[in-house]
């Protein structure tokens, strides 16, 4: 791997780590199910960028795209189901604050 490719990967790596921190912070600090999902989405965006960047640097963009398309399909299914769960929780408890979802306790 050439030095310039490694440099590009490292530059992108810094921003990917910052994006991961932003998403994780949003997930840990928020007490709103929809905001937690938004944080999760940002985490997924960071992972997507990492895969595409790795594919570009290694010269395997086709493989990276195939993996990213799979990731996007799974992401949409997860988001639809998670949105449904958030709505279900709101209908039953009139809140989407996870601290108040007490009837989920086993």
């Amino acid at each position, binding site marked *: 791997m050439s030095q310039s490719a490694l440099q590009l990967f490292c*530059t992108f790596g810094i*921003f990917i780590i910052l994006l991961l921190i*932003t998403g994780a912070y949003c997930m840990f600090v928020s007490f709103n199910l929809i905001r937690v999902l938004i944080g999760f989405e940002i985490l997924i965006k960071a992972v*997507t960028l990492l895969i595409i960047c790795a594919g570009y640097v*290694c010269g395997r963009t086709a493989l*990276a*795209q195939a993996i990213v*398309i799979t990731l*996007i399909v799974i992401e949409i*299914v997860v988001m639809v189901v998670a949105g449904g769960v958030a709505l279900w929780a709101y209908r039953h408890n009139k809140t989407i604050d996870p601290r108040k979802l007490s009837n989920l306790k086993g």
Partner: protein
Amino acid sequence: MVNMTINLILLFALILVALWTVMTIRLIRSIVGLALTSAILSVIMYRLHSPLAAVFELSVCSGLISVIFVTTVSFTQRISKEKLRIRRKERLLKFWYLPVILIATAVMLCQHLLTPQFTLPLLVPAQGLGVRDLLWSCRHLDLLGQVVMLLAGAFGVVILFKESRK
């Protein structure tokens, strides 16, 4: 050099929009921010020679997921102005650490990563297949997994919204 400058501008925009997405108080603004993040990410993907993934990202993540979030938010109740004021104060208290953490991490990483002292192992040459060939011939198990996931998602939503029989 020009290419790298454009990439850096896009990456800065990506981080700033992501930061705005998590820090803004209104959920609708957060969703718009998320769509913008996806749009900027798809431009970066296009610049990294991944046009098909960029189109997927733009149409699905920037479009469809925003629609799902907006629909979910529209079913919930709008909060009062008094509550909004209190929440804004709480949110500022919680989130002022985040830019500080990001800047500190960026400075720390710049010192270590911008002058890489390590090398990555040599790679086996790629087979030269296109995305479609790869998806349909080499990774057909992935496609099967995607179909199963889509079905599971559809069943999950049906079960979640099933009305109870009286």
